[in-house]
């Protein structure tokens, strides 16, 4: 399969998580991918562990929020770039970048202070992406308008 050349920042979508567009840092320095949510609420649905997640997909915009439910596939200790360890929920996400789509694990963290709401790490890009450190948004541009329903 041809690998997709991407910049170090890209707009991607996570269709199974209702996220039409989110800006991600494509980070070869990170192993796991992470999504920065402002709320992560665990619950059980027919005995299966689930999370209800709320995200502000656009940085510097706390009015627009998206929420989704996802099955928890694991809980795992993850170290961030500063060496800070945190136990995180792991869910499965479909990453869509341009015409390419593939499934990968995504860890949830609720630090809302990060500039990027999403980091795409090596495990998720493995075999799919080549990263150009000089370029940004080679594949997807931020959509002019994102339709969403409230309530």
């Amino acid at each position, binding site marked *: 399969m*041809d*690998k*997709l*050349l991407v910049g*170090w920042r890209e*707009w*991607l*979508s996570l*269709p199974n998580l*209702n996220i*039409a*567009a989110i800006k991600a*840092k*494509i*980070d*070869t*320095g*990170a192993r796991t991918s992470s999504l920065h949510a402002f709320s992560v*609420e*665990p*619950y*059980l*649905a027919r005995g299966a*562990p*689930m999370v*209800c997640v*709320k995200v502000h997909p656009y940085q510097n915009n706390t009015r627009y929020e*998206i*929420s*989704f*439910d996802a099955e928890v*596939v*694991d*809980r795992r200790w993850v170290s*961030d770039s*500063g*060496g800070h360890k945190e136990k995180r929920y792991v869910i499965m996400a479909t990453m*869509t*970048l*341009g015409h*390419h789509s593939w499934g990968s694990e995504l860890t949830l963290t609720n630090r809302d202070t990060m500039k990027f709401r999403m980091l795409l790490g*090596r495990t998720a890009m*493995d*075999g799919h*992406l*080549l*990263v*150009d*450190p*000089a370029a940004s948004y*080679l*594949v*997807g*541009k931020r*959509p002019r308008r*994102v*339709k*969403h*329903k*409230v309530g």
Partner: protein
Amino acid sequence: MTAFARPFRFPQAVSACVLAAFVGMASAQTKTDARHVIGWVEKVGVTQRNFVLDGKMDTGADNSSLHALQQEVFEREGAPWVRFQVQNPEGQTLSIEQPVVKTARIKRHDGGMEQRWVIQLGLCIGRQYKVVDVNLVSRDRYTYPLLVGRSFLQRDFIVDSSLRYTVEPACDGK
């Protein structure tokens, strides 16, 4: 590995999540060019002296950082300099003295600020030698002593995170 090695308790509740509509994104495009594709870990030559370290290519970082031991700031002809040592995987050390070009303030997770000295250092990957800003880190725990950021990588390299150790440093005479 089992998904829940240590069971944890989920509150019995119904999710309040609201579904939002999904809108597809712009189309893909694939480009090819002559830049060198390297892995996410490579042997990197430090200074002109063929001292080789394992470096992690970090497209998420603006600048490069180096694990520097025994950092010591001193004054030379009225300017601040820093003296430090780097250690390679074989345990050999290299002493480096460089002028401090600035200090970088890094926000830490405990809310405090960490100040790092920034120097200019020549790095070599493959045949590419560049002098870039490098900030000096004194972490105790680290996997790779050198993180190579975008200021070094850009315009010459493409990073493939499924590869490791694809090139040897070969910048002799530069």
